[in-house]
């Protein structure tokens, strides 16, 4: 339908220019286009209210309908590799650099220029293939995928068609508890290497630019189209999943696990906002019990894990509703766009059969040949991957919530591991990292690598609290100092005079002392208790008469006598024994 429109415009070339004349009437023109479109477009216009109204009013009904259907979800993910140079030329690539500055005859597709493959692309592809438990093709090749689009200077994309570098793998993950928890294994159909296209932009009034989606391109037909070729030729790995996912959450968690894996491997920053990790989702539904698949709908423009989740759940309800209303013929093979603002999917383009890309082997590049030694050496250099980390943490008897938090970010996991190897208690280390340290990082917008507290000092802090040298409350104070300024736990205890006494000042109202370390000698504390008890016979009588609250009074007196130096745990233990006449 879009191409029909395209041709119509081509036949009336006079419409293409005086851009300025038409630019203010875009709305009018747009409406005209829509209404002049074919039947499908008209149906589409009627659809949203049909779906929207019952969804709002009868959410329960929708849930019930949804329960009668099973969704089949598969995901294609493009990962932009963090190589220094492009895939087939030595142009440097940096996100956000001046447009059209990282270009050369190869990535501009000039005649005579020949591609030479970046060895890192193969290395990264092998790493990902191994991490996703795939079978590697020791002998693969590149192919040309031909199509004409202004962001593709050569007129073809160098990709891998029938022999991808990796096939038949899987990924393991654990669903978060808030989504019901549980372990999942999703199949990976293939991983292949290819190059990115340039970035197509349109500017309406000349004062803004934005990346083109097909939807915006319809709106902006009469505005200026420009391209930035910095991204053209940047290496990508495309990961195709098996249609193993059933819910939005499973799909979002699959994408999140891929992000973790590529970050652990150090092959991509996995940043969805920058487009370094792009997910296209295929959704179809079928009545529960039916074996054949329903009509597949592709969803694009998913810029976060939560939009993957919500877009899929929206799409499942939309399709289920059409099914239940006997309008399943209105579910057509098409590409839909997720609109974040409206929280719904809208038609982007209807598919006119299979695309004709006319693949053929890339004659300018040699075959990609891997030796078993090369694969083995990479296999041996792989870091501990998220799944292995989670299983290891689980064996440490950490809760699944702790496990998922700690293994989510490789740097946090490494920090945790380093804290443990400095001798810290497992659960206490997890609690400090997930509690105060995570809160600090969030407030200050820092990563764990930016904080000044070293894992060794965290272990020291935990040990100091555990041994009773300092209280938990003082520990928190020291922690915030260490996080912001660094230093050592011992140094801070001495320098800041942050002894147990300070806490006791709050608990027991007496003047502050200047002393440093705690009295942990039971005999000495016992002597002081004896003194206080003998000086306060009236209170002792009241206590023994049942007014046990007076224990606090005695404790305060002893603490005062010790000038705040008494170890409070020990003090209370001995005091209680003495008050109750046990010694």
């Amino acid at each position, binding site marked *: 339908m879009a191409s029909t429109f395209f041709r119509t415009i081509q036949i009336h070339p006079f419409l293409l220019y005086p851009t300025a004349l038409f630019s203010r009437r875009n709305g009018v023109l747009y409406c005209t286009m829509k209404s002049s479109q074919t039947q499908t477009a008209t149906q589409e216009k009627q659809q949203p209210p049909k779906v929207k109204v019952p969804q709002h009013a009868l959410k329960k009904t929708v849930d019930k309908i949804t329960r009668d259907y099973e969704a089949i979800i598969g995901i294609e993910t493009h990962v932009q590799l963090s190589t220094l140079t492009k895939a087939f030329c030595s142009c440097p690539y940096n996100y956000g650099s001046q447009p*059209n500055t990282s270009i050369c005859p190869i990535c501009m597709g000039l005649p005579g220029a020949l591609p030479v493959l970046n060895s890192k692309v*193969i290395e990264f592809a092998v790493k990902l293939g191994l991490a996703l438990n795939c079978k590697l093709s020791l002998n693969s090749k590149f192919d040309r995928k031909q199509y004409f689009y202004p962001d593709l200077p050569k007129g073809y994309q160098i990709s891998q068609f029938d022999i991808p570098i990796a096939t038949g793998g899987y990924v393991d993950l654990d669903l978060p508890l808030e989504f019901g928890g549980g372990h999942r294994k999703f199949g990976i159909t293939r991983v292949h290497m290819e190059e990115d296209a340039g970035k197509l932009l349109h500017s309406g009034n000349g004062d803004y630019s934005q990346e083109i989606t097909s939807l915006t391109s319809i709106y902006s037909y009469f505005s200026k189209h420009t391209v930035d070729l910095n991204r053209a030729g940047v290496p990508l790995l495309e990961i195709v999943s098996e249609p193993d996912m059933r819910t939005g959450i499973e799909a979002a968690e699959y994408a999140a696990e891929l992000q973790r894996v590529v970050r652990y491997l150090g092959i991509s920053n996995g940043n969805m906002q920058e487009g370094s990790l792009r997910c296209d989702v295929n959704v179809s539904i079928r009545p529960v019990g039916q074996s054949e698949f329903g009509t597949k709908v592709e969803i694009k423009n998913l810029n976060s894990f939560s939009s993957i989740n919500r877009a899929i759940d929206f799409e499942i309800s939309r399709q289920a509703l059409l099914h239940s209303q006997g309008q399943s013929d209105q579910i057509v093979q098409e590409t839909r766009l997720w609109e974040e603002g409206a929280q719904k999917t809208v038609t982007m383009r209807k598919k006119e059969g299979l695309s004709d890309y006319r693949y053929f082997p890339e004659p300018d590049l040699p075959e990609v040949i891997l030796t078993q030694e090369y694969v083995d050496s990479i296999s041996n250099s792989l870091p501990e991957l998220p799944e292995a980390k989670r299983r290891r943490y689980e064996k440490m008897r950490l809760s699944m919530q702790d496990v998922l938090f700690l293994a989510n970010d490789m740097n946090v996991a490494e920090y945790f591991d380093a804290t443990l190897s400095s001798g810290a208690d497992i659960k206490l280390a997890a609690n400090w990292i997930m509690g105060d340290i995570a809160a600090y990082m969030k407030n200050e917008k820092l990563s764990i690598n930016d904080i000044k507290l070293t894992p060794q000092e965290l272990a020291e802090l935990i040990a100091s609290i555990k041994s009773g040298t300092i209280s938990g409350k003082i520990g928190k104070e020291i922690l915030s100092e260490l996080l912001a300024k660094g230093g050592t736990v011992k140094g801070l205890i001495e320098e800041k005079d942050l002894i147990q006494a300070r806490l006791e000042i709050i608990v027991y109202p007496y003047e502050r002392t200047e002393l440093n370390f705690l009295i942990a000698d039971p005999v000495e504390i016992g002597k002081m208790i004896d003194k206080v008890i003998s000086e306060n016979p009236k209170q002792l009588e009241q206590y023994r008469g049942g007014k046990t609250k007076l224990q606090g009074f005695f404790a305060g007196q002893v603490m005062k006598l010790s000038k705040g130096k008494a170890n409070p745990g020990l003090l209370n233990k001995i005091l209680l024994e003495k008050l109750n006449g046990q010694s």
Partner: protein
Amino acid sequence: MGSRALLMLTNFNFKTTVSSFGLASNPFFLIKNNLRTRNFSTKTRSSLQPPDLPGLAETARISLAPNEVEEFAPKIGQVIDWFGQLQAVDLDNVEPAIRADTEGDNLREDVPQTFENKEALIASVPSYEEPYIKVPKVLNKE
């Protein structure tokens, strides 16, 4: 336009060449959605189907007026016929030659190198508006 027309031809070149190598049974060469040109026999030149010119033009994003279709159809037909001649060659015992043989991997280290003569690159862009390359508007990607 010249290069697009060339690609239209190279597509034909490719298909006919492939068939002439007797590889049509290799699943790789079974190009989807290509029924209109696929059902020719490997050795009979006369059975080549005439191209679906409007379809080709759409793939190449060229708009052809009906009179232009009439004008181009015989020309493209001639090129196809010319490649059709190659199909007479018996290649049953010949290994397919997909690319030139190269020694070793021929890989590149990941070391950035800035292309020096960027001015010349930009100067060769037909329509450039600092800092972007102006491009034609194309509505649908597939």
